[in-house]
């Protein structure tokens, strides 16, 4: 850097001087030692010379900087309107940019909050026709034992639990974890200890780790919590440790971690798929190596257990990718939009700066004539812009800080949303933006404003020279309009998609439906008792006044979910026919009347104990089974050969079971809705769904005192939540687009006003010579519209090119939707017309005599 190079040069220069002096003294008779002494004494001490010169150089620099800053601040406070406008515009632009960056940083860029998080991966077993990525406990242990590329493999699954030590049962989420869970994540409990090997064995002492949140709430944060017991029905567990406050794995809602013993008798089946498996790679091992290794391990298992393992394969994905991969596109789309917005703001500011530097040309010329160098003047002007940019960035940081709150409200299910916040990197990014903005905004106006035309400028008495048609400023307006048009097209397409989503006929009636969960465990699911319990609960619910129908379902209609299975009929089909692939859903028979799904043929199914029944939808019947002749056929799942064939009792209408934005798929409904963890209870209510919440809770408490009811939400709430990412994108992009067009029209207004001001004399002269005022208005409005049309055209062309990138987020509209493009053109022209009208009318109102007299 400069100072040290300066210092070295100085040292060289001064030591040369000293050497010459010593030579001279030696020539006049002194010895070398004496010469050195005298020379040094005459020269003062070396270091103080160095210091003085160097200090002086640094002082010169510092002086210049401080002077520029002071002068800049003074110049800016002299024009408060300009300063405030620019700072606020930049605060908006840079602030929005920093806000989106803080989200991208926390969610996409930062590694997961575990030590060496890059080594964490998720593992899944996959098999053609079975969409089941979960791993059986036995297989998990075998993978862990036989592989050579991962430090450890573990797994987890979560379910709801009722904690009953209090008055009312409290629903908690519990994660069952395989051994080595904390080892893989490399996290230690904040208080207490990890599980011991005895606790991880079947029949061993029961132990549980609790979350920080639960510790605070239930035990008041007291260290005596370790060793206390919790009753998680139907057993008691001893608390062995408390997890750190920042630990949110596998998800935010989990409050309990219990070991799932691999040697439990119910865990020995190779077909039992429970665990989401995660692992930690060995240091220095690549993903590809681990995949090869595990594929080999699975291949060996396939030879050992051909019936169950030979068709399975392994897939490995980095844990971070699995967690955040889905929203990457949305976030980058937001970042792109917000950067465009910043560009527009910069263009606006550049135009303002240009006008300002033209207005100050007199002052600049005087400075030149007083001997300032061009560098000095440029540096001073850049300092002014830098002050504005940094001020804007700092105010913008306030906006960015508030935005993490916005993200959390608009998109609560965004992965890692709790990690979004203001931190050092975001601040650095803001300041970096400020520097870039300074360069973008400042280069052209300052280059223009520091040219030396001394004679010309001073002679004109301070008037800036007029460039015929102001091509530069109008080009900038054109650029702004183009950028705003791009944003408008994007926002318009997303809005239309959202609207289309509201117009689809879902195939069922989502209004007046209340959904909820009742806590239960995997241990009690399945078999007759579960069926009877479900029936009893549903009967009890039906007796509540106001409830029209009650049913259960594994997943909600209209909410995106995918469970594709392959089916075959026992009656046989021709070999040439395509495979029957359909969505599988498990419902009780009252599901269809409750959802107002029409029955098209046959009759309603019933959940009978001895016979397995199913309903199919129209698409399935038409696609695979020749329409209504399908009733009476029997369906089997090749993947689940233990299930008896189910008789098709009837055909129902198509429902958008895979989400509102997908076409209704061929669907098979198995008429068995016995409750398991995750089962939805659906009630059709007379009146508003929310009105019966209290009654329902009481009823359930009556029927099942040990279970808790939770997540009482209207079905419409679930459906709109499912599209919350969609909604966030659309709202934000619409906001940006509106801001963009507002900025562009302000830019147009400003430029035209300036032009009108500049050409007062000419316009006044023309009016005096008989030009119609209407013509004057028309002239200026035409000028404005011409540049806007040009910008709009370029913007639409660019938008058409970029819209392809959006096509995966659109629904029901094509990327080049004519309605949207047309609407954008109309909006841009209308806004620009208004923006041009005001200055044009002002021009037409010039009183010729007054304007001419002013000269």
């Amino acid at each position, binding site marked *: 850097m400069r100072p040290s190079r300066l210092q070295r*040069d*100085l040292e*060289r*220069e*001064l030591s*040369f*001087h000293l*050497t*010459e*002096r010593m030579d001279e003294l030696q020539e006049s008779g002194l010895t070398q030692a004496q010469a050195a002494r005298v020379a040094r004494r*005459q*020269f*003062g001490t070396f270091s*103080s*010379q160095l210091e*003085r*010169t160097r200090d*002086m*150089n640094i002082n*010169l620099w510092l002086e210049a900087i401080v002077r520029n800053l002071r002068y800049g601040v003074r110049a800016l406070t002299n024009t408060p309107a300009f300063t405030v406008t620019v700072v606020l515009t930049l605060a908006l632009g840079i602030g929005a940019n920093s806000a989106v960056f803080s989200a991208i940083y926390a969610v996409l860029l930062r590694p997961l909050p575990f030590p060496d998080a890059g080594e964490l991966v998720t593992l899944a077993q996959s098999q053609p026709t079975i969409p089941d990525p979960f791993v059986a406990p036995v297989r998990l242990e075998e993978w862990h034992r036989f592989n050579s590329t991962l430090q450890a493999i573990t797994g987890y699954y979560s379910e709801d639990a009722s904690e009953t030590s209090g008055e009312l049962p409290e629903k908690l989420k519990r994660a069952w974890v395989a051994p080595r869970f904390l080892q893989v994540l490399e996290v230690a409990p904040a208080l207490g200890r990890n599980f011991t090997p005895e606790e991880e064995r079947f029949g061993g002492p029961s132990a549980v780790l609790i979350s920080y949140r639960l510790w605070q709430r239930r035990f008041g944060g007291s260290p005596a919590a370790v060793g206390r017991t919790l009753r998680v029905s139907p057993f008691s567990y001893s608390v062995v440790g408390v997890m750190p406050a920042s630990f949110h794995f596998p998800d935010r809602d989990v409050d309990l971690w219990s070991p799932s013993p691999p040697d439990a008798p119910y865990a020995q089946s190779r077909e039992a798929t429970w665990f989401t498996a995660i692992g930690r790679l060995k240091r220095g091992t690549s993903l590809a190596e681990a995949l090869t290794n595990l594929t080999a391990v699975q291949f060996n298992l396939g030879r050992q257990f051909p019936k169950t393992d030979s068709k399975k394969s392994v897939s490995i994905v980095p844990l971070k990718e699995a967690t955040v991969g889905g929203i990457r596109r949305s976030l980058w789309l937001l970042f792109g939009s917000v950067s465009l917005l910043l560009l527009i703001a910069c263009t606006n500011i550049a135009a303002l700066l240009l006008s300002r530097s033209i207005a100050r040309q007199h002052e600049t010329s005087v400075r030149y004539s007083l*001997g300032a*160098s061009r560098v000095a003047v440029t540096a001073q002007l850049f300092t002014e812009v830098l002050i504005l940019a940094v001020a804007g960035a700092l105010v913008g940081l306030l906006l960015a800080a508030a935005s993490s709150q916005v993200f959390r409200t608009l998109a609560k299910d965004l992965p890692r949303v709790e990690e979004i916040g203001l931190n050092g990197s975001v601040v650095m990014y803001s300041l970096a933006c400020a520097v870039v903005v300074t360069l973008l905004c400042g280069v052209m106006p300052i280059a223009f404003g520091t040219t030396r035309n001394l004679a010309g400028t001073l002679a004109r008495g301070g008037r800036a020279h007029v460039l015929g048609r102001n091509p530069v400023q109008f080009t900038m307006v054109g650029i702004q309009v183009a950028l705003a048009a791009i944003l408008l097209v994007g926002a318009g397409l997303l809005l239309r998609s959202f609207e289309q989503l509201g117009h689809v006929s879902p195939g069922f009636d989502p209004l007046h439906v209340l959904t909820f969960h009742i806590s239960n465990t995997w241990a009690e699911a399945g078999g007759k008792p579960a069926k009877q319990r479900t029936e009893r609960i549903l009967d009890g619910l039906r007796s509540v006044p106001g409830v029209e129908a009650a049913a259960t379902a594994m997943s909600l209609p209209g909410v995106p979910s995918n469970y594709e299975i392959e089916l075959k009929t026992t009656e046989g089909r021709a070999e040439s026919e395509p495979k029957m692939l359909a969505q599988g859903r498990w419902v009780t028979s009252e599901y269809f009347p409750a959802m107002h799904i029409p029955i098209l043929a046959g009759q309603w199914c019933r959940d009978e104990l001895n016979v397995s029944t199913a309903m199919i939808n129209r698409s399935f019947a038409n696609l695979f089974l020749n329409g209504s002749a399908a009733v009476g056929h029997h369906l089997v799942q090749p993947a689940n050969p233990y299930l008896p064939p189910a008789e098709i009792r009837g055909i129902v209408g198509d429902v958008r079971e895979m989400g509102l934005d997908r076409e209704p798929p061929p669907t098979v409904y198995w008429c068995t809705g016995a409750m398991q963890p995750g089962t939805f209870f659906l009630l059709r209510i007379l009146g508003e769904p929310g009105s019966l919440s209290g009654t329902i809770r009481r009823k359930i408490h009556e029927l099942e005192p040990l279970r808790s009811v939770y997540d009482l939400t209207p079905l419409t709430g679930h459906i709109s939540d499912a599209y919350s990412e969609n909604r966030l994108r659309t709202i934000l992009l619409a906001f940006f687009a509106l801001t963009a067009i507002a900025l562009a029209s302000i830019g147009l207004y400003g430029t035209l006003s300036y032009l009108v001001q500049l050409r007062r004399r000419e316009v006044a002269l023309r009016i005096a010579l008989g030009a119609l005022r209407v013509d004057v208005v028309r002239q200026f409005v035409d000028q404005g519209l011409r540049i806007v049309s040009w910008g709009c055209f370029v913007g639409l062309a660019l938008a058409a090119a970029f819209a392809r990138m959006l096509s995966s987020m659109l629904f029901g509209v094509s990327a080049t939707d004519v309605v949207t493009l047309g609407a954008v053109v109309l909006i841009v022209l209308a806004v620009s017309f208004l923006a041009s009208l005001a200055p044009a009318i002002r021009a037409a109102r010039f009183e010729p005599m007054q304007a001419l007299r002013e000269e």
Partner: protein
Amino acid sequence: MSKKENDILQGTLTLLILKTLACGKRMHGYAINAHIHQVSAQLLRVEEGSLYPALHRMEHDGWVRAEWGKTEKNRDARFYSLTARGRKQLMQKKESWKRLTEGVARVIRYA
């Protein structure tokens, strides 16, 4: 040395340096020093502590330009030469020096 005296001397030093370089040759700091001492018939001795600060200030203001070179003894030294702006400064400073000395002389002569 009080600041005020230093100021006058500094201003004068600038003038002396500018004039020294005005003959057109490139000179290094030591040579400038020697030249002034010699031409003034040893009446003036440059305070060596102010020489280099002055030279650097003038370089910063664009009155002189400097570049590294080799002396006859093949040593590395920094050579200074006058710029156009420096020449203008020289003329201005000569003018003000003349006025100053003229004015001082008159006041002293006044009995």
